[in-house]
Every structure is written in C-alpha cells, then in structure tokens.
C-alpha cells in the first residue's frame, strides 16, 4: 500500500477511476507551466531534493581538511483537500452520469493555479524563484489596448533574440489577457490569437495564476521542473456522510537561464 492509502477508502475501483478521470480532465487545461517548461521525473514520493551540482564550504573543519557540503533544493509538497458525499459515490456506482464532484474540481483548479504561480511568479517561502522575477530583462507593460499586444510580444521576442536566445518561444497568458486576446479581432477581422501565434512561433497557453503574460523559450533546459510524486489523489478519512480526499504532488522548480524569458505586466 502506498502512502496515498487509497485502499483504505470506502470507494470502489470504478469510482476511483471516475475520480481520477475527473481530476485529469480538470487539471490538464489549467496546468500551464507543464506546457512550457522542461519536465523531469516523476522520481517518486521518496525523492526529497534536486541535485544542484554545487557545494558550499563547511566552516570549522578539522586541521588540514577542506570540507564542502552539497547544495540541494528540497522538493515542496502541495496538497489540496476536498470531500465527496458518500451518497454521490453510491450514485456513481449505480451508473449516475452527473455525480457532484464540485469540490474535486475546485481542488484541481487550486493546485494547478498554485503550481503555475510557483513556476511563473515564484514562491519565496518554498525557496522557488519564478520565471518572471528571475529575468534580468525590463518588464514590458501590456496596457489596455489589446490591439497593441502583438507589438509588445514582438518586442519581447526581439529582446530574447538580442541576447542569443533563439526560438521556439511560448506565450503564457494570464486569464484576463487571454480573454482579451480571444475577444479581439484586428483590422480586417484577423484574430489576434493567430497573429500572436505567428509572432512567437510556439504554444499560446492559458495560464491561471499569471498576471499579464510571459514570453519564454520553450525547451532547451532553461526552465526545470522536477517532479517527485506526480499529481495523485489520496485518502484522508471518512464519516457516515462524506469521504475526505486530497490531490497532492511534490516538485521543485528552478530557472537555469534567467534571460530566456520576458515578463509582460498587466
């Protein structure tokens, strides 16, 4: 039995499949960082830290001894708890198609947003420096006028090329910027989305958790996401009315090439 304790839950195999499928379906559209950064792993729940390949001197070492200590980046564990009514689980076993999994959907969204925020914005308390805060390039203001987005994105692409970062590039768009892009057609009715796609030459991603947008190199080991335990559902406890579960993952993230991204502020 794994630490997820799934076998302890009063949930049938078929309903576990339903919960897993629902979680996958809700997570995938919102996990923006995984569509742009380099992903390695999963290395398992026991994996505790990422090797940084660096050392620091250890003070107070014995006479005649030079001592160094390895530096590692500890993985962060994220958990989003949720409940499912036992009556709904029973209905699922009867073949109900409209099982209420609202809390699971909300937990999936919270976790996806938290992962995106850690990668793009950083998470100081967890020791994660995000892409937007690491870049040495001046941020570019997106402004109110959506029709000027292509100009700003092109400027960001030029900035990357100027420091020798060649494509393919990707564009992570915060929800507000993404909505603006979808709603806007330029002169002649040409969708803004298509114009931006031509400029970056790579994926355009809806990125809840991001404010504004980020233009970044895709691939090339510049942005490194290391998964310990990949997203999983585990069991906490239950009573007569509900089963308490959680979505969980462990990961680290580090920026290897800070100059490979440009932030576009709202």
């Amino acid at each position, binding site marked *: 039995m794994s630490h997820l304790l799934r076998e302890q839950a009063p949930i049938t195999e078929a309903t576990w499949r339903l919960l897993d499928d629902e979680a*996958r379906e809700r997570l995938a559209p919102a996990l923006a960082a*995984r569509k*742009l950064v380099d*992903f390695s792993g*999963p290395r398992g729940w026991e994996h505790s830290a990422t090797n940084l390949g660096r050392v620091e001197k250890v003070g107070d070492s014995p006479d005649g001894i030079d001592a160094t200590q390895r530096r590692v980046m500890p993985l962060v564990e994220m958990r989003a708890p949720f409940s499912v009514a036992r009556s709904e689980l029973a209905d699922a076993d009867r073949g109900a198609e409209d099982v209420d999994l609202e809390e699971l959907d909300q937990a999936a969204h919270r976790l996806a947003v938290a992962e995106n925020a850690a990668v793009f914005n950083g998470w100081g308390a967890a020791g994660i420096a995000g892409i937007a805060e690491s870049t040495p390039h001046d941020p570019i203001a997106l402004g109110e006028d959506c029709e000027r987005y292509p100009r700003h994105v092109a400027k960001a692409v030029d900035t990357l090329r100027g420091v020798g970062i060649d494509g393919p590039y990707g564009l992570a768009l915060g929800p507000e910027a993404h909505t603006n892009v979808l709603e806007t057609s330029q002169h002649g009715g040409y969708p803004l989305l298509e114009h931006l796609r031509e400029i970056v030459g790579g*994926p*355009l991603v809806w990125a809840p958790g991001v404010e504004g947008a980020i233009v970044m190199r895709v691939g090339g080991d510049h942005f490194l996401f290391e*998964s310990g335990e990949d997203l999983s*559902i585990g069991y906490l406890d239950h009573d007569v009315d509900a089963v308490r579960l959680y979505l969980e993952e462990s990961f680290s993230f580090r920026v290897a090439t800070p100059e490979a991204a440009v932030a576009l502020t709202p």
Partner: protein
Amino acid sequence: MGTEQYHEPPSELPAATRTFARLCTSLTEEAEAIGWYEQRMAVEPDREALAIMRDAQGEEFKHFCMDLEFLLRRTPLWREIAEGILFSEGDIVEHGEEAEEEAVEGEASKGAPLAGSESLGIGTLRGTAS
C-alpha cells in the same frame, strides 16, 4: 504457409500485431530480394538484362522503405532512434548509440508514471497546447 509469418498462434494475436508481423515478413522479403538482385547483377554479362534487374532492385528498395516507414510509424521510440541514424554522415554505430541514449532518456523525461504508481500520470503537457 499463410501463417508461417507468425511465431505464436494467430488466433491469439491482436489484429494490430498480425498486421505488424505481416509487414515485418514483407520487409524481410524485400531485403532478401535486394540481396538476390545484387548477386544476379554481379554475374550477368547482358547489359539489357542488367538494366531490367537494376530497375527491379530499385522497386524492392522502394518497397523496403515503405515497409520500414509503416513499422516505424507504429513504434515512436524506434522511429526517434532511426531518425538519429538514417541519412546522416559519420560513424553509424556511434549515431546508433547516441540516438538510442537520447530517445530513451527523452522517453523517461516525458513524465511516464513509475511502475506501481497510483498517480494520475499527467507528467509533461508539452506539445498539448495550441
């Protein structure tokens, strides 16, 4: 004779495996024919006959390539390795070793769940965005 190409009872094999096996047999036959034509041409003094055999051998090469392409389309990892070997200058064995290493490492880094894992198996989502 129609089932000689199978190593296991055909009735127990999935349709996709039977098709894969048929194309493997076809690939073998094309390769054999290429070799036979090469030998025939080596000993044939008649130039007209030689031209016909050279043309026929070209056809076998074409069929060989079509069979190989079919098989590689159904085995993405091997396709990736083949891409590192085919149509490149330099040391063939070295290319083979490098291509295999890169493809296998790449496969491992795509976030495939660990054996026995109960995770959702999401891993990387690169290549899924528009």
